[in-house]
């Protein structure tokens, strides 16, 4: 869009290069990497989608819930002796340590989500204010958390914590798929299937669906709305904590006070792409967005294009199919 505007003016440098050669060469490795990132986006996107379903609110602070999970994992792993180089431990010891980190990360993120709901959103809900008030509170809360971390931990990324060296597992079209990619994608898919089943089968899940469809009627039918909303925030937080583990696994030095921000936008774009409020749509949207972002990155030759591509995808989806690929299934769309 910018190039269109400036093509009228004299140019020395080219703005955008399409590197088709690199694209063909790296197609499969970009695909596998894209799916890995996509699984992480999908897990974070679930948090956005669930809260949007029950409250009709974009929870901007969800990216900070995620980054709190990252810090929880970072502190656990560094206290367990993990550092920039992979530790010399047996496989079982590593798995045990990672599980501890996973639990700590999930609990930290869930606690953050719970505090957020109790301190910022619930008092507001009692007064039934205009929507704008909710959104401003959400962005304010996101900022408050982000800059509290900034004041405590400083502007620089935390030292890397490498969990293990990925080992090649098998070969597809001459590209190696490593153990890390398999673990992340498999674990993410299993978790999402679990959440999907939980929403569709369990009693609490039925409550969540009821509140998403019609909060007032659900309350009249005996659903405890406040408890359902807290549960939803906590589920979102737990998933964000799990996503945090995979994120740190993939990018060991990515723990930074504002590290959640751009990832949050991408995860939200994923949720919209799949259909906001739709649990399965979050996974689909996440995987697709991971793929599109990675293809865009190798085609345009700079890793920062990933974010631009994700944003353009978000605008295009809103332009063409605002309800997303799978539509808004959990709650009906409300005007």
């Amino acid at each position, binding site marked *: 869009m910018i190039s269109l505007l400036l093509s009228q003016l004299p140019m*020395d440098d080219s703005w955008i290069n399409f590197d088709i050669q690199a694209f063909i060469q790296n197609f499969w490795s970009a695909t596998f990497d894209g799916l890995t990132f996509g699984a992480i986006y999908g897990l974070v996107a679930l948090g956005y989608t669930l809260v949007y379903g029950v409250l009709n609110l974009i929870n901007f602070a969800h990216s900070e819930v995620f980054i709190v999970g990252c810090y929880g994992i970072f502190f656990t792993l560094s206290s367990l002796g993990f550092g920039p180089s992979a530790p010399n431990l047996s496989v079982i010891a590593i798995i045990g340590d990672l599980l501890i980190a996973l639990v700590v990360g999930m609990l930290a993120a869930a606690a953050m989500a719970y505090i957020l709901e109790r301190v910022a959103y619930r008092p507001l809900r009692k007064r039934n204010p205009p929507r704008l008030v909710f959104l401003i509170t959400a*962005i304010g809360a996101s900022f408050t958390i*982000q800059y509290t971390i900034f004041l405590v931990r400083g502007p620089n990324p935390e030292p890397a914590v490498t969990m293990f060296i990925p080992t090649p597992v098998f070969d597809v079209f001459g590209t190696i798929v490593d153990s890390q990619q398999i673990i992340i994608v498999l674990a993410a898919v299993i978790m999402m299937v679990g959440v999907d089943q939980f929403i569709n089968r369990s009693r609490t899940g039925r409550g969540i669906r009821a509140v998403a469809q019609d909060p*007032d009627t659900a309350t009249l039918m005996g659903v405890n709305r406040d408890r359902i909303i807290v549960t939803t925030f906590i589920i979102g937080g737990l998933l964000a904590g799990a996503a945090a583990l995979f994120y740190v696994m993939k990018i060991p030095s990515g723990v930074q006070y504002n590290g959640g921000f751009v990832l949050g936008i991408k995860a939200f774009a994923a949720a919209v792409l799949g259909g906001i409020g739709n649990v399965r749509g979050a996974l689909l949207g996440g995987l697709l967005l991971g793929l599109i972002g990675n293809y865009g990155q190798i085609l345009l030759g700079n890793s*920062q294009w990933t974010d631009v591509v994700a944003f353009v995808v978000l605008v295009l989806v*809103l332009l063409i199919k605002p309800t997303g690929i799978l539509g808004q299934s959990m709650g009906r769309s409300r005007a």
Partner: protein
Amino acid sequence: MSTTDGPTLVPDAQAAQDAVNRESASKKAGPFQRFGDRWNGLRRPQQWAFLLIVVALAYALPVLDIPILTTEPGNDWPITCFNMAIFALAAVGLNVVVGYAGLLDLGYVAFFAVGSYVAAMLTSPDSPFLHIPYLWTVPVAMAVTMFFGVLLGVPTLRLRGDYLAIVTLGFGEIVRILATIIPAMKGQVGFQNVGRPPGTAADGSPVFSNSNGTPWYWLALTIIIIVLLLVGNLERSRVGRAWVAIREDEDAAEIMGVPVFKYKVWAFAIGAAVGGLSGALFSGQIGFVNNQKFDVPTSILFLAAVVLGGAGNKVGAIIGGAIVAYIPLRFTAIADYKYLIFGLALVVLMLWRARGLLPARQRLLAYGRTAYQRVANRDSGPPTAVAAEEGDAK
């Protein structure tokens, strides 16, 4: 009020009653409210005389250098004044989007950045494009940012307001990234020697220099006054009434025949243009533009300025903008905490005083001053009459 599902009348009536209660509560509580009442009690000539004094004081601000207010010796006082003016101008623009039309724009700094880059790329010797005099870049910057506003607004404004929030948030980040990775925008190297308005002082040095903030402040203040007059007229016109109707209840406005989409795009585009204008002024004074100045936190500062002053109140926006720019420069010890302070301020304000320091007044816009005074005099009128005043003016 807020959106509801279908024709549930009871919550709406409740909400209207709440608004009335809040209004009367704030009348009791706020010292600013009493000031507002007295202001509205004055006759027009008295109001003009008072305004003239305020404007004269505002123009004298950088020269006076009042001891308690001054930011020296940490920061140059005239340049601080200029920064306050720039923030105030941006807040006036953002107030059109957030305050009048009720659209949440979280990437306002992007329009500010586009304006800065347009001014820099059309005047700086570092840029290969055609060069034009600095003052001509100001309308060009406004036109270009308006174009971006429409480009961003058209796909998102058809939908619910929340999408606009996230798309603008993304846009704010994308502009910064594009400035980094597109070679022609020079990333961190940036553009130096951005142009300045013409004019030389008696000793041959230029009037508008990077080190002397006073003429820049006067220029910015003049522009703020012009923009205020224009925005004030819009606010009192059909367009302003349409914005308020959209903000209060989009569906009801649509049913009443307000072309909702059209007026939302207009609000967004006008807000963007004012952002571009302030960006162009900013880059002129600094004389240097690179990708480091336009981060998303600055957008949130702009939002905090609008909310702090009272969304929907243009005088409040000016005061809010000036406060947000002033506090980190005056109290340098807490400058590092400014994002935390203003982020927290957003949460706390929404909880305790959602209408800001200077709450927007509820008014009957359609009939203006006389009708307002007639309603205001009837102190114990039926609640429906007060509820009907769902219009806002300054």
